[in-house]
């Protein structure tokens, strides 16, 4: 529970209204006063998966004292349409662009992968897609039917609205209503702890947090998918199938002079620590 976007939007609106009422002219775009002095305002809208990361990056970018970055959520499709019709300077999209969206220029910010995890003591080393679907829909109830010991499976699912849930459901072509969970969790950390504390549990969390926990000795095991091991490397080079790019889109020739410097900053290795902190995988 870290972000309340609607509130912050109102705060931003309030701040803007205050400036207007004080009689300070607010131009639509931005002006570059000196060569390296950035001023103005940048509007970024779109995917709620990307928004927390962009908000962190924006906070760091706002160390340029006269720059304001306004981050709003509303889903990837809003990011596309806002960037297209100029309501936003940059759109945030949590999937690869479709062919009909090639009128926008896209920049891959980071990648997000989801891996299935089981307890380290579980003898199961891989599951087929049918087995995963069977387990999550309640058709397979014991590990004995999935190549393990005779023990009831504890199915760990994510709460509604989480992007990991959406990615997982889309990949296995499941509907939210079909999943029969034994435990519902919030963030990735809780998922890792729940599986680590239950030898018969299966869950799915972002590759970033699972890999981090496993390296630090938490008793969990990352399952490969379609024969590809789940790791930051396979997510970064696109060979891991249950993954997606996090993309920033702009018009081919953005009108706001702040867009270029912001993209240069957001797409540089300087923000890799922020990407890792939010359990995504840097691509640079």
């Amino acid at each position, binding site marked *: *529970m*870290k*972000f*309340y976007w*609607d509130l912050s939007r109102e705060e931003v609106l309030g701040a803007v209204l205050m400036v207007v009422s004080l009689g300070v002219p607010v131009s639509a775009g931005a002006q570059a006063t000196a060569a390296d002095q950035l001023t103005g305002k940048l509007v970024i809208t779109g995917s*709620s998966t990307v928004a927390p990361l962009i908000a962190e990056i924006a906070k760091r970018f706002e160390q340029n004292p006269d720059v304001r970055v306004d981050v709003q*959520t*509303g*889903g990837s499709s809003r990011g596309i349409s806002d960037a297209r019709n100029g309501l936003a300077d940059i759109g945030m999209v949590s999937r690869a662009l479709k062919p009909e969206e090639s009128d926008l220029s896209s920049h891959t910010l980071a990648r997000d992968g989801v891996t299935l995890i089981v307890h380290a003591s579980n003898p199961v080393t891989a599951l087929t897609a049918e087995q995963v679907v069977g387990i999550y829909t309640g058709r397979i109830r014991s590990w004995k039917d999935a190549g393990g010991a005779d*023990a*009831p499976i*504890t199915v760990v699912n994510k*709460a*509604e*609205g*989480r*992007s990991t849930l959406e990615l997982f459901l889309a990949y296995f072509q499941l509907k*939210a*209503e079909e999943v029969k*969970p*034994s*435990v*519902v*969790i*919030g963030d990735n950390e*809780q998922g890792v*702890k*729940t599986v680590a*504390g*239950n030898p*018969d*549990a299966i869950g799915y969390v972002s590759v970033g947090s699972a890999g981090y926990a496993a390296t630090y000795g938490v008793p969990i095991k990352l399952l490969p998918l379609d024969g590809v091991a789940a790791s930051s490397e396979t997510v970064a080079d696109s060979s891991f199938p249950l993954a997606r790019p996090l993309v920033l889109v702009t018009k081919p020739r953005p009108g706001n002079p702040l867009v270029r410097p912001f993209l240069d900053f957001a797409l540089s290795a300087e923000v890799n620590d922020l990407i890792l902190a939010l359990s995504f995988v840097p691509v640079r």
Partner: protein
Amino acid sequence: MLAAALRAAAFVCGAFVVLMVLFVLRESWPALREIGLSRFFTDPSWHPQGGAAAGTFGLVPMITASLALTAGAVALAAPLGLLCALFCTDYAPLGLATAFRRLMEVLAGIPSVVYGFWGLVVLVPLINRWQPPGASLLAGILVLALMILPTMALLAQTAIATVPADYRRGAAALGLTRVGTLWGVVLPAARSGLYTAALLAVGRAIGETMAVLMVCGNVVRSPSSLFAPVRALTANIALEMAYALDDHRSALFVSGLMLAAMVVVLVLAAERLRACE
């Protein structure tokens, strides 16, 4: 001057409560208008992602879960807390009673997330070995009972300590036994304070979020047994608020409104009970 300051302080406190309720009402208004209050009680499940048209918004399993958790925790902690209080005031030597009181104060000050973490890494795996999946109504009740036990014990002790010494002397003069004195004189005299203690314990239990979120499993289902995973109203808000938009977000504020309504009902019921006495 002092009167004005006091009046202002009281006004600020009152205004905060009223403003907060108004805010929650305003935020939940879109859901109440689009979805309608009755669907929160009649919808078969909780799948709010589809919005007002395609989603379902049943809150009943979560209301049941919150009530079951609170009832279970208070049923365990209230008698235990009362006994601890009596032990301190009437049975323990002074040194032991003071040490026990300090211990309870420390226990009361531990943040709930610590209780939740303990529950998640110790209690849940333990129950899991017995009745999987471990994250369950029982785990929630035990953690909550532990959390409200110090509240109950400390407040009950304070209530018992305020019973005038004359009552005890009178009871002794009448030749009552120690148990008879406690049961027949001290506890009835401390009744109002004991009710307040229980009410505060209920309030803490029903509003507790983090610990419940961590140990209860959070599956939206009416509890069928002690070992079934459940989701409390508070946990529902904490789990989904960060990513909720539009109708979904507004529906979560309705969860909050429901929670506030439950507390109001409980307080009114307690008032009635006290008035009837």
